[in-house]
């Protein structure tokens, strides 16, 4: 919690007080410098007696952070006293004196590293260090400042020393962990906001649970939930207990899902594989073709769409020139082949796709660049496949027969119901608090997280999922109003939830719950206008769309377009776009409406059409009409013009960029609508407007790679 206003303001001094203080300080400085000179003499003359020790004592009282003096003091102690000590008792007495000296000074300066270290030197040099006394001592310091990290670090150091001594006696080590565990509860009861105590508690809990039975674990976890509840009811605005609750509940690891695989071109063979989140490829996915029942590797290269071809949710395989493939092509993706960019996600098991390549009727490939082949993917668990395909480690992966489900960070169960029961219990508890404290952000945030965890346990098309999504969207809206500092974060979360809700027709549960996949019948149009979206969270969902309406949102980037391999028309009017990007894999794109955005430079338009050398556009060419009405770029260039820009430096690609008056745009849209109905491919002719050649855009062909 922000507590800066709770701090005492340092008062300005009166001129008299200031003068007195300055005089006093001058005296102190003089004394200090004199002592330092004396010490220099002592060191140079090798004096190792009581007088020498006293000088260091006086200096360290004044300046405890002066590490050299601590070092000199240890020299004097060692050479002048300890080396001559007749027995352990004498030595111990000296060390004990040092410990007392340090303790007294620590009270004035509890964050001095050197004093804590001097203690360690004493204890590690003593024959019979009293670690138990140390524990009591550090306990006192944690009473003065319960968050002093020197104190907590030192406490863990002591415990480690004691544990090392009891290496053979596991029960003693456990007993000690238990007692430290109990210590954290004392600290937490003194002040619920002490995160250092919660932190230590979570590390100790793991240690204690190691040897516990399932029942014992469940009991101890229940106890922790009670503790958290106590804390959050005491001060729901304080984050420490909430964070501990989040740790306790744990986040279920997300499964990466493969949404589908399709052939997008036969000559050369091009295959697209779509994931439901951004992944990196660790090993190239295996592609093979069958010849006489023998799988033969098919040479080729995998690239993600976009300018960074090593990272993406949509991956395209292109066969190497001259490679030959048979009637079926198989792709195997092992769980180790991909890693998610987002933490806590992984591909749970290997996936295999078999793609038919026999039916190559070109008539079925409509449009300029070929329709995506849908519904021909056969998905198997690899274990059910016939014939050998080996993973990188030479073995086939098998799925766990009885998967264990996380219930909390410390407990698991064979049944998902236990997790659901726990989440429901916690949700209803937090809900009560939200009712009591409707304007407190923490319970709302935790409720939203708990609901998201619950959502992971149900079918995406279930009523419950819908109810959860609706509630979560409301919670984000509430958070935006009560915690405006983090508005953008909540808006992004809200965008994700809205997007999930609006794209339900595109995906379905796969046979391997909780994984998902493309629905068998893909919609071709999607209207997401006026949904308050800040971005497109998962653009691979939109892979099959022909028309996408994103009018009147708050979208700032067109990067998502890189995965809309099949899109013809996109309406992005009334958004916050400053430059274009991601069009390199939208070969079918014909019409991009960007009216009323924030594009200020022609270069920012052109940049969007830079494509990788082998991209579809480079091979086939294409025309894109980009409507740019009411963007600074057009306004700056003087009004009602249709601008035509062409460049032909790279292959056969031409891009036409137009801006028209509102009247003409409407006329053109009417034309397009008519075209939709009839299915005819119309040629648009724009009459009655001036055509103006714009300045030639410098287009660097090198960018193409």
């Amino acid at each position, binding site marked *: 919690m*922000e507590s800066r206003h709770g*701090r005492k303001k340092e008062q300005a001094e009166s001129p008299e007080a200031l003068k007195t203080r300055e005089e006093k300080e001058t005296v102190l400085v003089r004394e200090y410098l004199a002592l330092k000179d004396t*010490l220099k003499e002592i060191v140079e003359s090798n004096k190792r007696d009581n007088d020498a020790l006293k000088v260091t004592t006086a200096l360290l009282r004044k300046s405890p952070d002066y590490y*050299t003096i601590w*070092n000199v003091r240890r*020299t004097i102690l060692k050479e002048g006293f300890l080396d001559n000590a007749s027995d352990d008792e004498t030595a111990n007495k000296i060390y004990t004196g040092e410990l007392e000296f340090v303790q007294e000074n620590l009270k004035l300066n509890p964050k001095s590293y050197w004093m804590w270290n001097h203690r360690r030197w004493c204890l590690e040099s003593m024959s019979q260090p009293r670690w138990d006394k140390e524990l009591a001592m550090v306990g006192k310091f944690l009473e003065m400042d319960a*968050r002093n990290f020197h104190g907590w670090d030192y406490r863990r150091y002591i415990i480690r020393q004691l544990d090392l001594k009891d290496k053979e006696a596991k029960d003693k080590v456990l007993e000690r962990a238990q007692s430290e565990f109990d210590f954290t509860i004392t600290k937490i009861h003194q002040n619920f906001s002490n*995160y250092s105590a919660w932190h230590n508690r979570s590390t100790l809990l793991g240690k204690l649970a190691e040897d516990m039975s399932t029942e014992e674990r469940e009991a101890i976890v229940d106890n922790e939930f009670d503790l958290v509840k106590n804390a959050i009811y005491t001060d729901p605005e304080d984050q420490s207990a909430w964070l501990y609750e989040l740790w306790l509940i744990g986040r279920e690891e997300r499964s990466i899902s493969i949404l589908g695989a399709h052939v997008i071109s036969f000559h050369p063979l091009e295959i697209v594989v779509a994931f439901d989140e951004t992944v990196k*490829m660790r090993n190239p996915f295996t592609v093979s073709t069958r010849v006489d029942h023998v799988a033969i590797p098919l040479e080729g290269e995998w690239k993600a769409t976009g300018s960074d071809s090593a990272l993406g949710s949509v991956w395209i395989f292109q066969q190497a020139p001259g490679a030959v493939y048979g009637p079926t092509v198989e792709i195997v993706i092992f769980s180790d082949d991909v*890693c998610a960019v987002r933490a806590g996600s992984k591909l749970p098991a290997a996936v295999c796709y078999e793609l038919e390549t026999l039916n190559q009727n070109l008539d079925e490939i409509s449009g300029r660049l070929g329709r995506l082949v849908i519904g021909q993917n056969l998905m198997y668990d690899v274990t059910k496949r016939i014939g050998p395909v080996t993973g990188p480690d030479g073995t086939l992966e098998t799925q766990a027969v009885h998967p264990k489900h996380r219930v909390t960070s410390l407990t698991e169960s064979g049944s998902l119901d236990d997790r659901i029961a726990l989440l429901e219990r916690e949700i209803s508890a937090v809900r009560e608090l939200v009712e009591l404290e409707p304007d407190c952000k923490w319970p709302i945030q935790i409720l939203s997280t708990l609901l998201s965890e619950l959502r992971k346990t149900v079918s995406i098309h279930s009523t419950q999922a819908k109810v959860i999504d609706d509630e979560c969207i409301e919670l984000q809206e509430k958070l935006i109003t009560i915690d405006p500092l983090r508005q953008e974060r909540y808006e992004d979360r809200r965008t994700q939830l809205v997007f999930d809700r609006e794209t339900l027709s595109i995906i379905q549960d796969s046979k391997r719950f909780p994984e998902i996949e493309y629905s068998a019948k893909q919609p071709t149009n999607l209207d997401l206008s006026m949904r308050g979206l800040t971005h497109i969270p998962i653009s691979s969902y939109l892979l099959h769309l022909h028309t996408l309406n994103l009018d009147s949102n708050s979208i700032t980037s067109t990067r998502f377009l890189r995965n809309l391999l099949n899109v013809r028309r996109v309406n992005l009017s009334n958004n916050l776009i400053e430059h274009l990007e991601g069009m390199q894999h939208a070969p079918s794109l014909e019409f991009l409406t960007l009216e009323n955005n924030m594009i200020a430079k022609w270069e920012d338009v052109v940049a969007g059409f830079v494509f990788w050398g082998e991209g579809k556009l480079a091979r086939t060419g294409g025309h894109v009409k980009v409507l740019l009405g009411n963007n600074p770029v057009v306004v700056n260039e003087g009004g009602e013009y249709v601008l035509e820009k062409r460049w032909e430096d790279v292959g056969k690609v031409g891009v036409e960029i137009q801006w028209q008056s509102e009247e003409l745009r409407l006329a053109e849209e009417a034309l397009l609508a008519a075209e939709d109905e009839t299915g005819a491919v119309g040629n648009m002719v724009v009459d009655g407007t001036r055509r103006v050649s714009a300045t030639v855009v410098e287009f660097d062909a090198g960018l193409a790679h």
Partner: protein
Amino acid sequence: MATTQETQPTTQPSGPTFQREKHIQYFKRNLQMLPEPMTLGLFAIGGLELLGVLEEAISEANRKAWIEWIYSQQRIPSKDSPSEDDDALYGFGGPFSGLAFQEPTDGQQNLGCECNSHTTPYDTAHLTMTYTALLSLIMLGDDLSRVAKEPILKSLRKLQQPNGCFIPCITDYEPDMRFVYCAAAVSYILNDWSGIDRPALLNFIRESQTYEHGFAQSPRHEAHGGTTYCAIASLGLMGGDAFLDQRTMVRQEGETDSEFEERRARAGFVDLEGTRRWCLQRQTTGFQGRTNKPTDTCYSFWIGGAIAAIGSFDLVNFECNRGFLMETQHKAFGGFGKWVDTYPDVLHSYMGIASLALMGEPGIRPLEPLLNISKRMQERLYNETVFWKK
């Protein structure tokens, strides 16, 4: 490290005014405290450098005198009878010394204090002081030609612990992340990493990443903003694979399992995304140093610098951070306090300005987050010091 052109933004951000002139006066006043202690001197000199007035604030005579004073703190091997016993003692120490300082005779340069038969193990250089001295020398315009590189590297080898961590001096008992950073920065400035057992150091840094994904002083402790900066900046200075993230590392074509594991062992982050998240979650208005602690000026740099080092500074809310810093700057004295309405001190003053530098505040020179010096001085390191100059 990438270098960028020095640019001075010309537009003044809206909101409260940055009291540049007052801060200049504040650092000048603090400089009068020189020659001790050295670390505070670094903050004052560094502050004036960031404020763009270093040369005009320090007279030529003072500049030269301070260079000599810093070199007089250097511990060097005995010319006549170097002893292996002294191998851990080299580098720069605090101003107190039991060693006999040799006044340079005419025409000779001051090289520091030779270790001799009277030298005790406690008469030692200190890693933080070595780091501080090197940065100060660069800023004062020295070419580092009198820095005893080989002896310093020898000492580094003695100061590294079996677990990979560093202690600041051989008599000390504080192996922690602060000295990992000092060792990395010293090696970087000397342009020689032979003083460090790199795999061991990487292992220590990785193990110090907590379950919250911040970095602690050493393994098993609580994540902390200062140590997180030290860990991340060390990885950045080490360069190469050290800045890779184990969680998202990708097997390269033709790489075997054991080769891949070897490469993973050269990566410094266990989970970079987690670290980024932890750092960003420390922003309240300014930044807090640990979970649920009060917002404190210095973490605007410690955490801000760590975020800048991993290339995500654009995710920081500038307006809030700047707003907090404008509140902690002292309206009358100049300088920054730890909290609102507290007296300024030179550490918090430097850190406040360094954080503003990361945000491109007008009137402040751009900052290189890994070494925590201005980009101008980083260029000077590359072009004008003996260890880097081509």
